[in-house]
């Protein structure tokens, strides 16, 4: 197992720069998830680490050794592909044994190693099956086994669950997490699914437009998004982001949203002080609030403002409610059936401890 360090990676496809000056440090035994929308450069980054793409400039070091000039086969890493890429003309056993054969491992040793990794992944019963006779989950496990069998320096996974159904993904997510704890392999995992990222990653690296937007523990990325993109990419439903104005008259902070300047939330003075310290720009200020931090009351409540229910999405354990406040729509998550019907009037407030402020021009969080 090993560390991976990317420094100033640049990758172009023709005139298009798909990775722009990427820096990323992955510690030994760490599980890092590269998260981002399609086309953000996350898969290209992974392929660059693997040696499947040449980079235009920058350095890739695995275990302190620069590898950007080495071909894939000399980097000693394993790769799990989205569609598993099991060799269709080989049985599960031969698929798993394939990398060992390349290394010239003795036959009986191959058999022993394959057996061992097969038992870890519980695929002993299908070891003689051909890929065409396997279920998606089995194929995924065999692909994992093939990656693990030769004890690589690092495991790279490119949306390994992208083609599986939701239930199986949930199952495999847990399995993969346990596997990582057991084997302790340095893992880079690419996905566009934030649930996978949040649940499995030691760290999440959010990418967009070839730029690393933020890297941190799942909780950090969720609670303190570095910019508008991260705020809106992580979390479901997405964080509400509403243009606002803020003033600190007297000993309270007023956050005014909408064109009419009548919908005004009241918070403690500390908010204004913090904003002022950040030298905020009144004209490009937006307030961000996660749906679960929007407080909803059915009765008029002091300090709350009136809103109209536009739409209700019942999801079972909780409901997602679209609320019209003036011209703006905010989404709140409420207890199941707390809000009864569309068109209903409710009163809302925002949880002061979970407010985020962004500059809409730069997109950066003001870090409140």
């Amino acid at each position, binding site marked *: 197992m090993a560390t991976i360090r990317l420094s100033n990676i640049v990758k172009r496809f023709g005139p298009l720069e798909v990775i722009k000056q990427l820096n990323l440090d992955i510690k030994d035994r760490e599980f890092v998830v590269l998260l981002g929308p399609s086309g953000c450069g996350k898969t290209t980054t992974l392929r660059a680490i*693997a*040696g*499947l793409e040449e980079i235009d400039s920058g350095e890739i070091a695995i275990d302190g050794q620069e590898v950007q000039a080495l*071909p*894939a*086969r000399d*980097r000693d*890493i*394993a*790769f799990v*592909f989205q*569609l598993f*890429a099991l*060799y*269709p*003309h080989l049985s599960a056993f031969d698929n798993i044994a*394939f*990398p060992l054969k*390349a*290394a010239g491992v003795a036959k009986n040793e191959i058999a022993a190693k394959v057996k061992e990794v097969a038992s870890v992944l519980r695929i002993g019963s299908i070891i003689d099956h051909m890929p065409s006779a396997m279920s998606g989950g089995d194929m995924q496990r065999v692909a994992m086994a*093939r990656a693990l069998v*030769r004890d690589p320096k690092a495991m790279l996974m490119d949306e390994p669950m992208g083609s599986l159904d939701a239930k199986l993904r949930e199952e495999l997510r847990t399995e993969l997490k346990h596997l990582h704890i057991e084997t302790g392999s340095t893992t880079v995992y690419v996905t566009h699914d934030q649930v996978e990222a949040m649940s499995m990653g030691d760290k999440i690296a959010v990418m967009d437009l070839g730029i690393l937007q933020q890297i941190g523990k799942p909780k950090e990325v969720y609670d303190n998004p570095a910019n508008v993109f991260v705020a809106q990419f992580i979390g479901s439903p997405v964080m509400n982001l509403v243009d606002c104005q803020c003033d600190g008259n007297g000993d309270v902070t007023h956050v005014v949203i909408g064109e009419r300047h009548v919908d005004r939330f009241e918070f403690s003075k500390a908010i204004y002080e913090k904003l002022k310290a950040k030298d905020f720009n009144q004209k490009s200020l937006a307030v961000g609030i996660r749906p679960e931090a929007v407080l909803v009351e059915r009765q008029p409540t002091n300090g709350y403002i009136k809103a109209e229910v536009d739409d209700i999405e019942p999801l079972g354990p909780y409901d997602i409610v679209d609320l019209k406040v003036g011209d703006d729509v905010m989404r709140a998550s409420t207890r199941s059936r707390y809000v009864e019907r569309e068109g209903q009037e409710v009163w809302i407030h925002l949880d002061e401890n979970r407010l985020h402020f962004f500059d809409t021009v730069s997109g950066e969080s003001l870090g409140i």
Partner: protein
Amino acid sequence: MAAVVSQRKKLANRIMIAAVLVTTFIMLIPIYWIATTSIKSFSDAVAVPPKIFFQPEMTGLVKVFTKRTQLRAPKYKITDQTLESLEADGVPGDVLVELAAVGKLYRTESQFTDAVNEALGPERATDYLALVVRYATISDPTPEKYADARWYEKLIYDSGEKILRASPYPNRLWNSVLISIVSTVLSVAMGTLTAYGFSRFRVKGEKDWLFFILSTRMLPPLVIIVPLFLMYRAVGLIDTHLGLIILYTAFNLSFSVWLMKGFIDEIPVEYEEAAMIDGYTRFEAFRKIVIPQSVTGMAATAVFCFITAWNEYAFALVLTARRAQTAPPFIPSQVGSGLPDWTAIAAGTVLFLIPVVIFTFMLRNHLLRGVTFGAIRK
């Protein structure tokens, strides 16, 4: 409603089956025609209207393996043997003496009878003429020779010819087999490698190159055959196996590259990437992953290349004469003297069809999948 639909479907299905049967039937007619002609007698083969029912015989088949010449017409001469036979049949001595004077060799029956008439006088001549002609006839072959002949020699005698020597047809077939197989192996191997390159690497001007490769196929052989002949003569490739192998390989290569590119494009690149990460070089990945994956395509391509090389006529006709001549130009060369001998040509053609049928049959599973598989491009 559902019943109506399924009825209609059934009907459509039946019409399809009928259409397939009719098409098959029509396509089999020439095969049937050639196959039956090869086992007809010459007179049956050229009969008008064509004969459906006939006595099958092997003459055509024997002819294609032999060089023959026409039998000579019978000649007439009174020899000592003739006189002995006549005597044994009770011809009086004076007649024999006068007949012995007719010693010359006659080339036609009328000249001979005239001579006999003159020697014997009209009266005696009428009594003995038939007998004399019978014993004086020297036929080709002689009855003894005919009796000693093997079955195939008899067949040829019966059709008015005699065998001079074996024909070079087996050698021509062998040339065809050798040249077709070697050129097929070469064009599939080179085509697969080239197609792999085009499929997996960004080649500058890829489309132009591919079009250029295809364009080598656009001129009909006859257009380039004269310059080709001159070039081949200059480098001494006329009438050599190597000459035809090079030509057929080049000719089939464009086809092979295009077909194989279609197949290799269909193989996900991830398989090789996985292999390269698993510690293999690109060439090992090609050998262990791409080749097994494209066997179907290679088989289909091989069948097409083999058939093209096997059937090629124009180049073989012009560029070979004896040593390296293939079967296609040889078979019609049976049209030697006199009437074209359709039975021999048909027999040669039937034998010529067999290897290609066997080859295609062996690869039939790949072929059916291959043809549909390669047809779908991304």
